[in-house]
């Protein structure tokens, strides 16, 4: 296990319920200065802010972090990672929490972003390149809802922004192998 702590501090450390997948991201170096949450563009929309997610990633409880809707709101803007005074890869920690939540089958409180990410990768796997209209349709099916931006989408279509015909499929057999390589671990 990689750790930024050693010596007496490590010996005194309480038992930690560290979440698998966050090793090597320096999460244990966090001293809760909250700079990550202060600079986060979506902290106000999150149930748990970035500094709280880092704390949970190090000390648990795992379930609380993985069920958070906050992890799915992260825009991956990398402001937190860039500004952390202790070199914690905060966005990386949040990615690890998302991946862990998916791997352990934890359902987020708000499933919209997870549905979108799944729809996106479905489209990549099926076509090689993403076709925006297909992606939106896949999202609607996965999230079981009419996308909020449907009227805007119609306006964009009328402007000629959204091509109706998808691009030709590219390297899909090769991509299927990439997608299936990690399965069954």
């Amino acid at each position, binding site marked *: 296990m990689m750790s930024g702590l050693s010596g007496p501090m490590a010996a005194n450390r309480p038992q930690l319920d560290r979440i698998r997948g966050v090793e090597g991201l320096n999460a244990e170096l966090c001293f809760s200065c909250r700079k990550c949450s202060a600079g986060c563009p979506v902290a106000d929309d999150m149930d748990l802010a970035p500094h709280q997610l880092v704390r949970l990633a190090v000390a648990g409880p795992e379930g609380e972090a993985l069920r958070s809707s906050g992890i799915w709101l992260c825009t991956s803007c990398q402001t937190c990672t860039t500004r952390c005074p202790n070199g914690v890869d905060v966005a990386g920690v949040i990615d690890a929490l998302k991946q862990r939540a998916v791997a352990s089958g934890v359902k987020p409180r708000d499933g919209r972003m997870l549905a*979108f990410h799944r729809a996106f990768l479905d489209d990549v796997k099926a076509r090689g390149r993403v076709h925006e209209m297909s992606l939106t349709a896949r999202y609607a099916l996965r999230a079981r809802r009419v996308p909020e931006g449907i009227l805007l989408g119609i306006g964009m279509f009328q402007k000629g922004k959204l091509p109706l015909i998808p691009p030709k499929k590219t390297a899909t057999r090769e991509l299927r192998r990439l997608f299936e390589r990690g399965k069954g671990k």
Partner: protein
Amino acid sequence: MTVRVLSYYPGCSLHGMSREYDESTRLVYRALGIELRELANWTCCGASAGHSLDQELAIALATRNLELAAAAGNELVAPCAACYQRLKIGEKESASPVTVLHALDVISSPETLDRLRESLQRPLSGLKIVLYYGCLLVRPPEVTGREDYEDPQSMDQVMAAVGADIRPWSFKTDCCGAGLAVARPDVVRRLSSHLAEMARQAGADCIVTACPLCQANLDTRQDKGGLPVLYFTELLACALGLEGTESWWRRHMVDPVPVLKKAGVI
């Protein structure tokens, strides 16, 4: 005269809703003597869905494209900031021999800036702009290698070379909401509306971007509306007096034509 040959990775958006970014990039690069060779069989970089759900898959999707570029033997240029960042991470993780560049990196090199100044037909001095770099072009600096990540300068240098009236503002690298647009448009609307309002307060006629996600979010989700959002390559095409720009303007949700006409850009 061709002075440089590069492999080109347009990415999904530039073949979809952001074709004007693709067309303007190709046009401007050609005018500056830079040949773009699109990678045959390129596939999606995985974007934020990839690294949100499956780290290994995310790297594999980027690396696959770098292998195509390695076979072609040239540096690889991507105009989309999100593709650029994912490919840059792939470059690092796979120790790829290919150097990944953003479209802005190529134009802001000293020799290209000289060519830009020499080829200038129509200075943009009447156009008041703010420059919006967004997130993934600059962050994290360990990936992008940029030192000026809090106050980047490359787009400033490029737009100054064509004489634009650049207004200072503090929101160059604040987030627009990126890939949340479909599932959480409420969040994107809040972030993008704020950026547009700050641009207005800085006295800008329009916002200039270097990323299809930034452009789409700002163009479609301003509460008050009315501030055009342009790609830097579209304005460079105007400044260089290039033909074939007309079809781009009608694909913008906020019509940029009145602002561009008033400023004498078109």
